[in-house]
C-alpha cells in the first residue's frame, strides 16, 4: 500500500517538466562555482567565505526553497487540483499515511536535486580542500532544509489551493526581508534553521547563524511534526468542492 502510494507520487512528481526545471535551476550554483573557480582569482588558500556566500546566496536562498516549494506544493496539491486525489482517498488508507508519504517523496525529490548542487558548489570553490568541514555542513544543512521546507509546503497544500503563492511570499518576503528586520522572527524561518544547522557543523568562520545548532534542530522537528499533523487534520476533512 505504502509502496504504491510512493510510486504514484514519485511518478507524478518526477515525470513532469517541473523536475527538469528544478534540475536546471540546480545547475546555477554549480555554474557559478565553476566560474569563480576558473575565471576568478582564488589564490592558493581555500576560500571559505566565497564558498559560504555562494551556497548561502544560491542554494539556501534560492534553489532549496524554490525546489521544496515546487515539489512540496505539487506532491498533493496538483492531485487535488486535477481531481486524481479522489482515487487515492477512495481507498481505506489512513490520511496520515498519505500526508507522510507525500512529504517523504517531496523531501526526497528536493534532496535529490539540491544536495548534490550544494556539495558540488562547495567542492568546486574550495578546490577539493575542506579542513573546516564546509562540504559536510552545507550538504547536511541542505538535506535538513529539504525535509523541513518540503513537509511545510505539503502541509500548506492541504490547507489552501494558493499554497504556491503563499509559499513564495513566505520565502521571498518573510524569510528574505522580515526575518532580517526582527530578530524574534528567526524562530519562524526555515532558512534560519538551515543556516543554524550549517553553522553547527562547520568550523569555518564565515558561516554564521542567528540560531544555535540545537535550537535549529528542535525548531526543524517541531515544524515537520506540526506540518504533518496539520496536513493530516485537513486531509481527513477534505471535501470535494471547487478544488477537486
Amino acid at each position: 500500500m505504502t509502496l504504491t502510494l510512493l510510486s504514484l507520487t514519485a511518478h507524478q512528481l518526477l515525470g513532469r517538466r517541473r523536475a527538469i526545471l528544478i534540475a536546471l535551476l540546480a545547475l546555477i550554483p554549480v555554474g557559478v562555482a565553476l566560474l569563480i573557480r576558473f575565471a576568478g582569482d582564488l589564490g592558493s588558500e581555500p576560500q571559505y567565505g566565497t564558498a559560504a556566500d555562494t551556497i548561502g546566496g544560491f542554494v539556501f536562498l534560492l534553489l532549496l526553497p524554490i525546489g521544496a516549494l515546487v515539489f512540496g506544493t505539487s506532491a498533493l496539491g496538483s492531485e487535488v487540483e486535477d481531481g486524481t486525489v479522489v482515487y487515492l482517498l477512495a481507498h481505506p488508507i489512513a490520511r496520515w499515511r498519505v500526508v507522510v508519504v507525500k512529504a517523504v517523496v517531496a523531501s526526497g525529490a528536493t534532496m535529490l536535486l539540491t544536495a548534490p548542487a550544494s556539495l558540488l558548489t562547495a567542492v568546486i570553490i574550495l578546490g577539493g580542500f575542506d579542513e573546516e568541514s564546509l562540504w559536510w555542513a552545507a550538504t547536511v544543512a541542505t538535506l535538513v532544509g529539504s525535509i523541513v521546507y518540503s513537509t511545510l509546503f505539503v502541509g500548506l497544500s492541504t490547507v489552501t489551493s494558493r499554497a504556491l503563492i503563499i509559499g513564495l511570499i513566505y520565502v521571498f518576503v518573510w524569510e528574505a526581508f522580515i526575518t532580517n528586520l526582527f530578530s524574534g522572527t528567526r524562530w519562524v524561518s526555515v532558512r534560519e534553521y538551515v543556516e543554524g544547522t550549517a553553522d553547527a557543523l562547520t568550523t569555518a568562520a564565515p558561516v554564521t547563524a542567528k540560531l544555535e545548532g540545537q535550537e535549529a534542530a528542535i525548531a526543524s522537528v517541531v515544524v515537520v511534526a506540526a506540518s504533518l499533523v496539520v496536513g493530516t487534520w485537513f486531509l481527513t476533512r477534505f471535501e470535494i468542492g471547487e478544488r477537486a
Partner: protein
Amino acid sequence: MVSEAAKVEVQNVSRWYGDVVAVNDISFTLEPGITGLLGPNGAGKSTMLHMISGFLRPSVGVISVLGATSWRNPEMFRSVGLVPERESVYPFLGARAFAEASARLHGLPDPEDAAGRAIARVELEDAQDRPMGGYSKGMRQRAKIAAALVHDPEVLVLDEPFNGTDPRQRLQLMEMLRRMASEGCTVLFSSHILEEVERLAENVLVIVNGRLAASGDFRQIRRLMTDRPHTFELRTSDNRALAAALVGLPHVSAVELTDSRLDVRTTDFGAFTAAIAGAVRDSGVTLQQLRPADESLESVFSYLVGS
C-alpha cells in the same frame, strides 16, 4: 423504519454553501439493486453523491453506508467503490496498472488477478497497457470503473458513468451493472440522460432544486401523481364509436381522435383501466392496442421539474 437490507441510509440531509442551499432535507434508503439519481444540472446530484461517498460533510443530517457514517470514514471504502465524474486519470498509467494500483491500495491479496478481472469486466483488455493519457473519454470512464470495482464492492457509486461512452460501450456497462446488482451489489448512479436511467434503473431518485421530488419506481410515481391527467393511446376497429362511449365517463377529461388513434386523458388511472373493458364491449368495437402514453421517465421528469 429502515429495512435491514438498506445499504445506504440518508436521513434529513441538507448541505449548503454559504447562502446557497445545494441539498435540502433529503431522506431515502438504498437497497441492493440499481438506483438512478436524476435531476437537471445544478439540482444537487453530485453534492448528494459526494456526501454519500464521504467527500462532503452534510451541513445537517446523517448519512450511513453499510451501517457506518460516511463522513471521515476511509474504512468504508473496503466495501464501497466510487467512480467520480471528473475525467482526470493518471496519464502515465495504463488501465491495468491503474486497476492494479487500486487493488494494492485496497490491500487485496492478489492485486494482479483482481486487476485482470476488473479490466475484463469493462472489456478494456486491448488497451490495458497503453498509458491512459492517450485514451478516449469512454475508455477513461471504463478504466475508472475497473479501478472502482476491483475489490468487488457491496456499494458502487457512479457519477455520470456513461459520459463519453459510445452506444456499444454503454450497453456493455449497463449489462455489467445489472449483473452486479443481481449479485447483490447496491448501485447508485447519476445521469442527466433520461434514457439511460429509464433503461437501467429499477428505482429513481429525482432531485429538483436540491429537494427530493420523487423516489421509487417511476411508473408507480407517475400513477401517484393524481393531479396530472394520464394519457392513453388506443387503436380499435372503430375509434369514433369508442370515443362516444368514453366521453361520458366521469373520470375521462378529454378524448381526441386522430387519423388512426384515439387519445384519452383520464384523471383516475385505476378507474379508467377498470372501466375500459366494459366500454369496449358495450360499444361493440375490437380493441387492438391500449397503452399509457405518458408513463415514460421523461414524462414523469418533465412533470416533476415543471411542477
